């Protein structure tokens, strides 16, 4: 099992969710946890103005999604994210995917553990 953490553009969330649904849904829906984050990558923060004075933000708003998957779904999930989160030609700020080892997964409702709980 792996835990996939991806940081994407907020406006791509809808597309990514649809792509994940395509890749992961086995009939009982797909599962994902989403949160709002601020990121700093090569992309610079936005400039805002306060009474005529420019203020450059250090961070840009991003969306982070977390998905626990069984091993055989890792690559499909990555491909789904890649295809949906990338802008036309790929632009700075498109984001990043991290894959972490996941040792255990437990469904709170039933107490099931492991691959079937994911």
């Amino acid at each position: 099992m792996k835990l996939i953490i991806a940081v994407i553009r907020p406006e791509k969330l809808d597309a990514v969710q649809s792509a994940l649904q395509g890749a992961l849904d086995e009939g009982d829906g797909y599962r994902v946890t989403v949160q709002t984050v601020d990121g700093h990558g090569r992309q610079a923060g936005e400039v805002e103005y306060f009474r005529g004075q420019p203020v450059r933000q250090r961070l840009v708003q991003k969306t982070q999604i977390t998905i626990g998957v069984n091993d055989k779904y890792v690559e499909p999930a990555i491909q789904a994210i890649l295809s949906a989160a990338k802008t036309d030609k790929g632009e700075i700020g498109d984001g990043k995917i991290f894959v972490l080892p996941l040792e255990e997964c437990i469904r709170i409702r039933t107490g099931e553990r492991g691959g079937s709980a994911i």
Partner: protein
Amino acid sequence: MIHLLAAIVPPVPIDSGSTAWMLTSSALVLLMVPGLALFYGGMVRRKNILTTMMHSYVAMAVIGVQWVTVGYAIAFGQSHGGWFGWSWPAVGLHGITPASMYADKGIPEFVFIMFQGKFAIITPALISGAVAERMKFSSYVVFILLWSTFIYCPLAHWVWATGGWLFNYGVLDYAGGTVVHISAGVSALVLSYMLGPRRDHPEGTLLPNNLVLTLLGAGLLWFGWFGFNAGSAVGIEHPVAGASAGLAFATTQTAAATAALVWMLIEWQHTGKPTSLGMASGIVAGLVAITPAAGHVMPLSAMVIGAVASLVCFYAVRLKSRLGYDDSLDAFGVHGVGGIWGALATGLFAVTPVAGLFAGNAAQFTKQAVGVGVTIAFAALGTWVIAGLVKATMGLRVSEQQERDGLDITIHGERGYHF
């Protein structure tokens, strides 16, 4: 406001229309205080929003009590040599009855007292824009109490009370260019120097927590300002709801609209971004500048006054980063500078009841300049003394940790939002 000594005029019957307008105006000016609280509150960081709003609200509480206790007596009691007023029956208003009439204006004296009291409340609250995010709340409360008693009330007496020395000299101030805006703006500047800048100020990621509030605040201020300016016809004529009020209403509206437009155009020109904070700032700058002139000038002059107000305030605000003081929300940049321009412009554009420079009466401009100079000097010196005393006894600033953690939680034990 120009008005006559109540004692020497024969009683006039109640004019219900004038009374209706003055009651309404007094209510409108009170609403400016929450308006100001939102205007300022929206501009600070989230952690300081409540304390910033409280700076306005506490003025309603503290000056609200001070005014009926002694404030009115000092400002509008029997004049002592033109320097300050004092009338025993005015203390606690205990000698004033519902039947007491104000001068020859056909309104109860209680109504006039209330109208004036709202001015006394909002003026120190204007100063708070300069001290946002770092002043000790207790010191602020003591400061505005002293400032109102020893700066505002005498100044109101000088300029507005029959027998006040600037009133006698002939300074025109329809609704408070000198008494309200210059005095508050200059005191704000002095105070921001005495306090020093916010610790994280020069790095400057101090973005406003909620511009919606600032826009709404500017809207409430505009609305309330009609009472502020058109209600000040009470100093000019009877019935109060008449020609002078109508003129003051028209110039107030016109100056605010023009200033808002011009500030927007300046920003569009400079940065390509017409901001909502710029819109709000332009509105307020125009309202400030027209205040002393409202019932004295024609609408076309109000346009010029509004347009120039945005120009000078826009650049005055930028000055601040160069001169190194931290007037957090530009109380001086907008109220001080806008008020000075407005008071001088009154001397240029006035046509009624007295002529100004452009109508051939250069002397009026001189009088206005004297009025401006005196107000600046008195407010600056007075603030320096009062704030100095408060600093020496209570301190002016919060601790470093309070500033870091925010004043809302550390002073007031609350957070503005729990989302």
